[in-house]
């Protein structure tokens, strides 16, 4: 008989993992929604978030909130430049979907190896944002994990509201639906693309920085979240924001609970099998219809 406290701990771990997947995947789905492309450099932006927080907090001893805001600003600028310089010139190509994949792959390879060259391959540890543990009914949880959960909820709800209420958010949704008609409203789709790319990168970097204290920071830390992120967006339905969140938590929870009945090496198979099974039943993904 498994003790309830183990189940509860796994639940928290699953939610933490799920929130990471949800953050990464919502960035991917955002880019698909507006630009109709898969961004294969997303994992590297996640990694840069991790290194950013490491440099800010460990190297420069900045307070976490300051380091985090600086990282967000930097990542936004870097991503916007990448979009302007390398992605926007591809937009009109007939082979847009595949060429965007290879260009973002190239950018990913570049960033990953540049990071390796600059920072080396050591696994670096980042201190928790919130130290200490919470004791509850005889169970102990690191406050940092609670922080991740709360932060994810705030960010995702905030982002949702941003999309729903602000002038810019509405423009993003309009562009994602029909960029030509959006142009008739005075919206400049190219600018929307650049900003969307920047915001999506921020979501990835935020996840990377939050996870940095749990998994250590290294140049390859973005590879797994990228693949899992893609699995999540397809599972949830490409282009659907709520699908990405739902998918993120489904995969996060099923992976952590699988540890109870599968040897740990097999854990990774869960998400892949889940994806294929769901696509057989529902080819458009769980919430595969555009909505915000």
């Amino acid at each position, binding site marked *: 008989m498994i003790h309830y406290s183990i189940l509860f701990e796994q639940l928290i771990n699953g939610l933490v993992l799920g929130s990471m997947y949800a953050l990464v995947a919502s960035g991917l789905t955002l880019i698909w929604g507006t630009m109709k492309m898969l961004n294969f450099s997303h994992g590297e932006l996640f990694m840069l978030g991790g290194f950013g927080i490491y440099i800010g907090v460990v190297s420069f001893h900045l307070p976490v909130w300051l380091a985090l805001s600086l990282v967000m600003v930097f990542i936004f600028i870097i991503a916007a430049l990448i979009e302007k310089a390398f992605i926007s010139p591809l937009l009109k190509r007939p082979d847009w979907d595949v060429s965007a994949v290879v260009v973002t792959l190239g950018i990913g390879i570049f960033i990953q190896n540049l990071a390796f060259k600059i920072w080396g391959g050591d696994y670096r540890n980042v201190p928790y944002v919130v130290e200490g543990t919470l004791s509850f009914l005889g169970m102990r949880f690191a406050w940092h994990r609670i922080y991740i959960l709360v932060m994810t909820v705030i960010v995702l709800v905030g982002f949702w509201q941003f999309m729903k209420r602000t002038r810019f958010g*509405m423009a993003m*949704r309009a562009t994602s639906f029909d960029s030509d008609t959006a142009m008739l*409203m*005075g919206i400049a789709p190219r600018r929307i693309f650049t900003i969307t790319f920047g915001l999506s990168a921020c979501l990835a970097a935020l996840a990377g920085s939050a996870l940095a204290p749990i998994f250590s920071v290294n140049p390859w830390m973005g590879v797994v979240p990228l693949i899992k992120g893609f699995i999540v967006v397809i599972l949830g339905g490409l282009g659907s924001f709520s699908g990405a969140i739902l998918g993120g938590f489904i995969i996060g929870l099923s992976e952590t609970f699988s540890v109870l009945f599968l040897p740990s090496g097999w854990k990774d198979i869960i998400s892949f099998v889940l994806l294929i099974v769901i696509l057989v039943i529902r080819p458009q993904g769980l919430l595969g219809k555009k909505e915000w």
Partner: protein
Amino acid sequence: MLKVENLDVYYGEAQALWGLNLSVSSGDICTLVGANGGGKTTLLKTLCGLLSVQRGSIVLDGEDLLNFKPEDRVSLGLSMSPEGRKIFSNMTVEENLLIGAYNKNAWKKRADLLEKIFEQFPRLKERRGQMAGTLSGGERQMLAIGRALMSEPKMLLLDEPSLGLAPKTVEQVMELIQSINESGVTILLVEQNVNVALKIAQYGYVIESGRIAMHDAAEVLMANDHVREAYLGL
């Protein structure tokens, strides 16, 4: 208000508009009629900047439109209502209208503008929270027009507002267009339904295979033999 001179436009290799001349005077409803594939929508797309111009000029109120990107033309007072299906059906009715007020000046006044539109289109007010994709054909058309009005245009371009609507609804839409015009907006109405268009317009152009075949006061065109035969089926 709007002056188009010697306009040549190409769709890829094929020339779609040939030396087109057209002018709309301030305060008028001017209509452009013609059969499908004659170049009506091409002209509208060109005016909005979605297609590029090979030769010729487009001047709106003394401003050369060709110097402005498509998205910047809205702030010059040019607004277009594309045919009814082109609403943002992933957004609510109210959001569709708000996005119409995207340009900075209009956005500041969006609450007032929204009230005004709701007064003019009570149906849209009833459905403000509903997803635009669930509207009926007539309501979609109203929404597209309302959305175009949210930018407070001087000049409104309408693309086939009668398309696919029941005769009764067409009548309502035409009345609406007249009342918009009376409130001081100049209108270029592009229509396939020649009969209703010429009824409310002051001036009309007939476009055939990318060229203006004739133009005259609406009543004169109504009485013209060629128009009666080819478009009114009389």
